[in-house]
């Protein structure tokens, strides 16, 4: 049953563990200030529940988990909240993130602790304690532990990851040597939560003291097996360790629970035991400080939130000698730009490298297709191929070559003779794949929203049109009903149209008659027309001569034009006059005579009026009346003569003249 399955690939870098695993874990004193990022784990950021100025006690909850995959954060020591602000995060991006800053008071006073009757607790209560304590994976990834323990699939095997395969790091090694009993108790508690699965501790054979301590402690418990595995990087990778211990492979895109397994880091197990047995939330961790620049290289029990600079000072790291400061190990860690960032829950190592301890970032050479990376890859990928795709930004192809299965262990880059920073290419490609996926999702969302908006606009238009139609139909129906109720009544519109048509027809019929009547004009009409023409020309002539006078007096430039038109008009007026005269002569008309008659009529009319007026005041009414009668006769005669003349101007006028 002690069988070990080999996994593909892997490398054997120098261990460099002895620098830091010779001394016991030293508790670091409380630093003056603690900086706690609200997001130290995978999942949603916790939400600060304290405000600036609040006094907090050690172990007090200061930020609560938001959502299922999230973790609580507790005050690692007592003090005052001095700020909740954006600070540089201990993250490869060196971006800013929300941090709660505690100015410690040095008293390190604990909050009142609830103690549990551990034996009486059921699974849900145990999980509750783990969740409340804010425990996340301490191996490096920082996944909330309670979530991992609540797998939906039945768990047959609990694997405790004690491999600690990465060079330099000895935090778990020292922890197992010094707290083996606590680890075994923790495993027992986890086994209770997971309904007593088989428990296997996987530990590399380069830690004989830890193996001895664990084996001794495991004898006190039942069903816990310590299985020693050969030292090979990255046997501590979750998937690799599972393969070594069980021979099973976690399916692509799946989690260990899919094959009935749960894997927990040995440090996490100890933290869980502390939380349940000692009611101690996750406020500190064991961190290795190592590297050539560290005088007191070793392991330190550090409060979460301790600035790296403080820890380095405590471990007597010479920052001037430090060529590169790395958080994490040399294979998977990242370079810290700023030593003021805090230690967080997942910080297992601070590597202060000096001289050429870590190869400097070198210009890399061209890939020579040697294939060594493929041999080294523990995930059985084709690193070379992925590199080409990442370089050419062919992310779709990289995805098809299972880029997502890359655990970024760095084995490929470690063996690469061209020193190509392969892992960074894969991280870049992974990031791009992720952002492209998000962009595609957003685009899809935008497309759906755009289309539904278009649809909505079309629907609104159609609805309006339909409403309009309905209204028109209703109006037509009302009209029809009205007509049906009163059938004799004509449609007003139709009646109006008929009237208009009739009028038009009449006009058309009348028009030809008028046209005919034009031809044989009566002499009177012709005479009238001539007179009118003569009058018009006269008026025009007058106007023009007046304008000419004006123009001449003001010296206007149009004088010449006016003079010309005046001459023209004069000629026209003369012609009109001549035509009129000729016509009169032809008809035997005598305008003078007509005038005379008109004057006579007017005169007699005036006389009659005058006499009539005087009649009321006159003494001799009779004589006046006689005069009126006479005047009236004269007026009547004059009138008759005029009308006679007007109707027949050629008649003999002499007879009338006398009267």
């Amino acid at each position, binding site marked *: 049953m002690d069988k070990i399955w080999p996994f593909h690939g892997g490398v054997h870098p120098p261990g460099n563990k002895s620098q830091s695993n010779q001394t016991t874990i030293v508790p670091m004193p409380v630093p003056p200030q603690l900086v706690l990022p609200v*997001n130290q784990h995978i999942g949603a950021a916790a939400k600060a529940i304290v405000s600036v100025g609040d006094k907090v006690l050690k172990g007090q909850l200061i930020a609560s988990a938001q959502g299922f995959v999230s973790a609580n954060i507790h005050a690692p020591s007592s003090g005052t909240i001095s700020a909740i602000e954006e600070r540089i*995060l201990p*993250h*490869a*991006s060196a*971006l800013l*993130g929300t941090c709660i800053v505690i100015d410690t008071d040095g008293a390190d006073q604990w909050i009142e602790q609830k103690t549990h009757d551990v034996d009486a607790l059921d699974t849900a209560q145990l999980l509750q304690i783990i969740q409340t304590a804010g425990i996340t994976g301490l191996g490096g990834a920082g996944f909330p532990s309670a979530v991992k323990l609540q797998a939906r699939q039945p768990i047959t095997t609990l694997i405790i990851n004690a491999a600690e395969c990465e060079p330099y790091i000895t935090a778990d090694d020292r922890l197992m040597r010094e707290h083996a009993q606590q680890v075994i108790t923790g495993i027992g508690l986890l086994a209770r939560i997971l309904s007593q699965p088989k428990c296997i501790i996987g530990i590399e054979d380069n830690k004989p003291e830890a193996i001895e301590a664990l084996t001794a402690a495991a004898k006190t418990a039942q069903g816990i097996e310590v299985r020693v595995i050969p030292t090979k990087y990255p046997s501590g990778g979750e998937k690799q360790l599972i393969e070594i211990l069980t021979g099973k492979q976690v399916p692509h895109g799946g989690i260990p629970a899919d094959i009935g397994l749960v894997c927990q880091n040995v440090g996490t197990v100890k933290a869980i035991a502390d939380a349940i047995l000692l009611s101690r939330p996750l406020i500190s961790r064991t961190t290795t400080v190592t590297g050539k620049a560290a005088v007191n290289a070793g392991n330190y029990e550090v409060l979460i939130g301790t600035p790296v600079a403080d820890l380095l000072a405590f471990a007597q790291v010479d920052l001037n000698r430090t060529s590169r400061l790395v958080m994490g190990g040399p294979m998977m860690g990242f370079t810290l730009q700023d030593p003021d960032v805090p230690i967080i829950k997942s910080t297992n190592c601070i590597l202060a490298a000096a001289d*050429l301890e*870590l*190869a*400097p970032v*070198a*210009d*890399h*050479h*061209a890939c020579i297709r040697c294939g060594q990376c493929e041999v080294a890859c523990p995930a059985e990928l084709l690193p070379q191929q992925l590199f080409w795709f*990442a*370089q050419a930004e062919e992310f779709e192809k990289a995805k098809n070559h299972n880029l997502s299965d890359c655990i970024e262990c760095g084995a490929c880059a470690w063996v690469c003779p061209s*020193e190509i*920073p392969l892992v*960074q*290419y894969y*991280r*870049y490609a*992974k*990031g*791009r794949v*992720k*952002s492209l996926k998000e*962009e595609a999702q*957003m*685009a*899809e*969302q*935008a*497309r759906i*929203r*755009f*289309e*539904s*908006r*278009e649809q909505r606009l079309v629907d609104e238009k159609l609805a309006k049109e339909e409403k309009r139609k309905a209204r028109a139909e209703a109006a037509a129906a009302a009209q029809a009903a009205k007509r049906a109720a009163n059938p004799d009544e004509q449609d007003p519109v139709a009646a109006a149209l008929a009237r208009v048509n009739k009028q038009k027809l009449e006009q058309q019929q009348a028009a030809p008659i008028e046209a005919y009547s034009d031809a044989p004009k009566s002499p009177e009409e012709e005479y009238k027309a001539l007179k009118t023409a003569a009058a018009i020309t006269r008026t025009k002539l007058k106007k023009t001569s007046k304008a000419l006078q004006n123009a001449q007096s003001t010296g206007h430039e149009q004088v010449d034009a006016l003079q010309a038109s005046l001459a023209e008009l004069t000629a026209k007026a003369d012609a009109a006059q001549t035509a009129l005269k000729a016509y009169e002569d032809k008809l035997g008309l005598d305008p003078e005579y007509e005038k005379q008659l008109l004057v006579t009529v007017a005169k007699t009319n005036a006389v009659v009026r005058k006499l009539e007026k005087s009649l009321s005041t006159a003494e001799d009414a009779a004589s006046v009346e006689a005069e009126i009668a006479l005047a009236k006769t004269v007026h009547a005669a004059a009138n008759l003569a005029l009308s006679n003349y007007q109707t027949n101007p050629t008649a003999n006028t002499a007879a009338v003249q006398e009267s």
Partner: protein
Amino acid sequence: MQTLYLAIIILALLAIVFGAILGFAAIRFKVDGDPIVDQIDNLLPQTQCGQCGHPGCKPYAQAIASGEAINRCPPGGEATIKALADLLDVEAIPLDAEHGAEAVRTIAYIREDECIGCTKCIQACPVDAILGAAKQMHTVIVDECTGCDLCVEPCPVDCIDMLPIEVTPASWHWRQPEDIIATSKQPLNVGGSSHG
């Protein structure tokens, strides 16, 4: 002679059989719509900004399908042009500057205390990402905003800002290592200490 007839008959029969199969397949597996338009549409960024001169991404997809240039989408930029060139098997051409330059993705933010509640931006938004009512303050639903810029112009009080999307530790990702082949930069024998 008989062999000749036999061959002709067999070939004719085969032609009839295969013709029937093809005919059946053409009816049975008929694809509705123009699949190329959807494929093009899927590559476009769906910003719906209209910078290409079409009222949305789908109309531009249709225009591309009927032969329009593939380089008129500034939000998509070179990546979209490349993807379209791959799909349509044409040459990737540089972005047509007439339709705008490729810029960082932005998101609209309304300076809310300056908003007068005119609803003009709501009507302009192609993806219904602005929330508000007449004479009430409006706000942009950041998750839905495509950064199309169409709401900025109608705003009578100029209270809409287009701000670049902030990089958070969650959205950050590693850059591509600078692609230098050392041998092309300097002679190999210089230093040579990089091999640890």
